[in-house]
């Protein structure tokens, strides 16, 4: 019985390395090294010194604000300390939203990605369409859609299930995430050398077994760095929820400024918001870099 050809791009093995999938990374690393040699200095990468700069901005702006405010007013750092619980509770919201959106997006996105390599054209084209649709729509537009189209509660019979704003925001943010995860999965599966497919086929694995037992386990480590990058981007995008009225950190910062009614607090408070996001996202960025390095070829 003859089988239909697999939907898989031809892999160009005519290279200098026996790891063709890693060529782009090796390329970009080489380019970066060349640029750095030309400049005679290392190009900046996000590192802990940026955190120190942010902290310094916070302290200096607090100092300047203090000098402007005059003696009669509460010191800026004291004000900041007093509002810290409110702001940090807002930040917790950002983290919860990012976690849930990432979980939902990953779960659905993985399936969507696998559907994109399906052998059935309608499934493949349908999932491709959904992926492209959500990947190319602005995040804020998707957020607005969810905010104003989803009801605030569901009634199933007599049971009323409330549906608060932050859950709607989570759903709204998980849409672009699932589309991006879908592309990450599709790309990773396609990046596995075709020899793996052929070898497992010759060992009489069927397609599902090949995918689950041979291809996907190899994909995990390739997907990890872009997936973590996506998470960091998502975390920083959660402040978009402030535009639709979710009480996350950015919203709370605006309310704190309104309550304090002191224009000199503007820079210190927003610096504090920046610092919180840096402290949270920086370790993730470091970890991603480390993982990327581990999975790359040595130059």
């Amino acid at each position: 019985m003859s089988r239909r050809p697999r939907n898989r791009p031809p892999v160009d093995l005519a290279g200098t390395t026996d790891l063709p999938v890693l060529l782009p990374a090796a390329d970009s690393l080489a380019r970066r090294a060349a640029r750095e040699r030309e400049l005679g200095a290392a190009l900046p990468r996000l590192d802990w010194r940026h955190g120190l700069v942010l902290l310094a901005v916070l302290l200096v702006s607090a100092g300047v604000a203090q000098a402007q405010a005059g003696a009669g007013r509460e010191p800026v750092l004291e004000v900041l300390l007093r509002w810290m619980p409110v702001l940090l509770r807002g930040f917790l919201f950002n983290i919860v939203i990012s976690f849930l959106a990432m979980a939902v997006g990953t779960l659905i996105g993985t399936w969507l990605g696998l559907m994109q390599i399906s052998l059935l054209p309608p499934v493949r084209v349908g999932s491709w369409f959904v992926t492209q649709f959500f990947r190319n729509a602005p995040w804020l537009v998707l957020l607005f859609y969810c905010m104003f189209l989803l009801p605030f509660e569901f009634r199933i019979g007599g049971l009323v299930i409330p549906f608060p704003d932050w859950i709607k925001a989570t759903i709204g943010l998980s849409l672009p995430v699932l589309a991006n995860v879908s592309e990450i999965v599709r790309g990773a599966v396609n990046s596995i050398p075709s020899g793996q497919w052929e070898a497992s086929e010759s060992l009489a694995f069927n397609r599902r077994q090949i995918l689950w037992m041979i291809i996907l386990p190899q994909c995990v480590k390739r997907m990890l760095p872009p997936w973590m990058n996506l998470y960091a981007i998502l975390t920083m995008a959660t402040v978009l929820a402030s535009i639709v009225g979710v009480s996350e950190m950015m919203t709370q910062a605006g309310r704190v400024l309104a309550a304090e009614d002191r224009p000199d607090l503007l820079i210190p408070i927003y610096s504090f918001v920046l610092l919180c996001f840096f402290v949270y996202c920086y370790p993730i960025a470091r970890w991603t870099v480390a993982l990327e390095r581990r999975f790359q070829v040595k130059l």
Partner: protein
Amino acid sequence: MNKLIRSAVLGTTAALALALVASVAPGTATATTLKEVKDKGTLVVGVKADYKPYGFLDSDGKIVGIEPTLAADVAKKLGVKLELVPVVSSNRMQFLEQGKIDLMIATMTDTPEREKVVEIVKPNYYSSGTNVMAPKKAKFKEWTDLKGVPVCGIQGAFYNRKTQEQFGADIVAFKGTAEALTALKQGRCVAFVYDDSFLISKLGDPEWADYDMPLKTIDDAPWGLAVAKGADKFAAFMSDMIKDWHKTGRILELETKYGVKNTPFALEMHEKYKGS
């Protein structure tokens, strides 16, 4: 193949459309009636959380201010618990329509367009006008002096458009008053157009000694608290509630408590209902 692609695209579009319709359907909640509020045991009120002193955060994260206190009065009269939901200008009427909040007391100016969407309860509970705050040396005399001048405003305020279209000012809109005031101080705009009651309280501050409110207040417009369309009994109840606030001087008392000079509107309403 082409046919297959077309059918797949069609299928997906249909599925998406269906999902949208399905999600909209349960959103058509009916107006909350007085009885429903009592049955629930909770009154959900939409208030501002970024508009001192009418509704703002205290450092415990609770919403306080003149309007939250009024909301508490309503809940107390009904004998139910109070739940405050922070709203912004762009979502407050939607929340009321959806039934997410039962009552809205959120510094909303009473306009005929808004009366078509929500039930604005009469008499009005408060009022404010529009004015600008500018450096004394700018020497504005008429509103038309603002022509071609950059003027700071707050996003979503209804008088931005009027200032722009009628008087020819270039509106630069900001998220909150802190941002707008900073811009005014830095000279990115020459004037700040906002509610006069806020500007009066601001000008009392020695920090703003070089600024004044040179123009005549315009658009002295009443504020309306609102319930959903069709909630007639609830509206009638709220109407009595407002009359009572004016009668007892509750609004004047709250203005004093939160450091606002008694407004002419509140004084006048107190005079009017005192005898009744």
